[in-house]
């Protein structure tokens, strides 16, 4: 049987199409390029951060087809046809009263000091949005368990949990 998709030469770049934040990007990529590297180095979407590059810290968390994933362990070539959302695509588009809008959880992180240096924050917020959407924010213990894939070296955990709880109580998740 002849496989549907042709194999690609190791050194050869391959034309790939990625859908990120509702935009379609076409680029040439090597099979070994991770989604995180493509987002940051090729598409200029530097919101997703590289902390460990090994799936351990959660700084690179994005949504793939509406579910969180560590972009550092995903090969970009394997994400074609999937809907990718990064921190840049979270807030509602357009401006209100000349101001850019924030996603309610982004606003809550500001209000509740859910960050110090901010490096882990994009990943925290992408996980937080999923935690709220999937109904895992019923208690602080629940939030902590379902946010455990995101490490904060500054230890802003109290503020992070408070921010998620506040959105849960306000029920204003987008």
């Amino acid at each position, binding site marked *: 049987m002849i*496989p*549907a998709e042709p194999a690609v030469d190791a050194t050869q770049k*391959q034309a790939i199409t990625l859908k990120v934040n509702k935009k379609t990007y076409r680029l040439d990529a090597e099979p070994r390029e991770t989604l995180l590297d493509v987002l940051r180095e090729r598409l200029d979407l530097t919101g997703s951060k590289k902390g460990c590059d090994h799936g351990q810290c959660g700084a690179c968390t994005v949504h*793939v087809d509406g579910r969180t994933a*560590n972009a550092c*362990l995903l090969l970009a070539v*394997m994400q074609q046809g999937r809907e990718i959302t990064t921190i840049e695509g979270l807030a509602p588009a357009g401006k209100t009263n000349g101001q850019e809008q924030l996603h309610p959880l982004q606003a809550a992180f500001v209000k509740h000091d859910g960050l110090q240096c901010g490096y882990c924050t994009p990943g925290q917020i992408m996980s937080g949005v999923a935690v709220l959407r999937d109904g895992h924010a019923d208690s602080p213990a629940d939030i902590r368990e379902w946010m455990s894939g995101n490490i904060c070296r500054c230890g802003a955990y109290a503020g992070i949990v408070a921010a998620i709880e506040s959105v849960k109580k306000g029920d204003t998740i987008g």
Partner: protein
Amino acid sequence: MKSFSYAQATKPADAVQLLGAQPQSKFIAGGTNLVDLMKYAVENPDRLVDISHLDLAKIEPANGGLRIGALARNSDVAANALVQKQFPLLAEALLAGASPQLRNMATMGGNLLQRTRCNYFYDVSQPCNKRTPGRDAGDAAFRPTGCGAIGGYNRIHAILGSSESCIATNPSDMNVALAALDAVVQVTGPNGSRSIPILEFHRLPGTTPQRDTVLEDNELITAIDLPTSAVGGKSHYLKVRDRASYAFALVSVAARLVTQNGMIREARIALGGVAHKPWRLPVVEQTMVGKPATEATFRTAAQALLAGAKPHEHNAFKIQLAENAIIRALQTVSS
């Protein structure tokens, strides 16, 4: 990461054929173990065959139990209503593993095959018989390259079933639950399909620690079958680790118990974090049948399960920890 070529398979038969078409090819499913190891140059395939699009992600009733497709995501299986109802032990073990993000990516087949490993395995500057097997592995003249953990820092390592070649533990939580549930692994390869009982699927290191399982390199896992036991009962997965969440098990226990009027009718106990494979001794379970479901019975069984445990310099604490964890897990399912 070393450069490699990529091919996407659309049917299981194509996947097997693509894998066989070029040496040094590997399947990739969720990629959470493989990509990680490729970044450390521990795995260096020349070609990846992407199996993530195969139509093998269903969870369906089969023969009174369940058939779970090899490509089903760990998070989907844990959240599945049939799994939660019939095999809550599996859901509990899956949710005890890794992080929400990783469980969204990780597949059942990939979890079965995540490498049995230790920190030294990841560090290519350290000797490791599993990563770099002796050149004559398998024959009488076998000369190991060495094991960084033996004589090194071995707090997380095995206390049971290890060999002079390797003392690593299988890190999967799911595998421990599958061992207690008598799962059957369905595989297909160039020479046809076969079924492998879970207790025979993973292996002890012996003199060939490079082989974690009995799966052949050219075989594809298609499904995991879970048979339903004749009688109901209670189950629990207890995971003891260095932090409250998102850490590998130091010791874990998958327990299932059926009791009647305080007497044990059926028992299943599998241990994680203690050996190169999930540790289960059906003979010990047999001796529990007909005995009262009391701490004394549980302690005797725990000690029998751990008989012959051999600690290394830094992990002697695991023996007592495992004994207590077994008793705690059994008390939880008997109360």
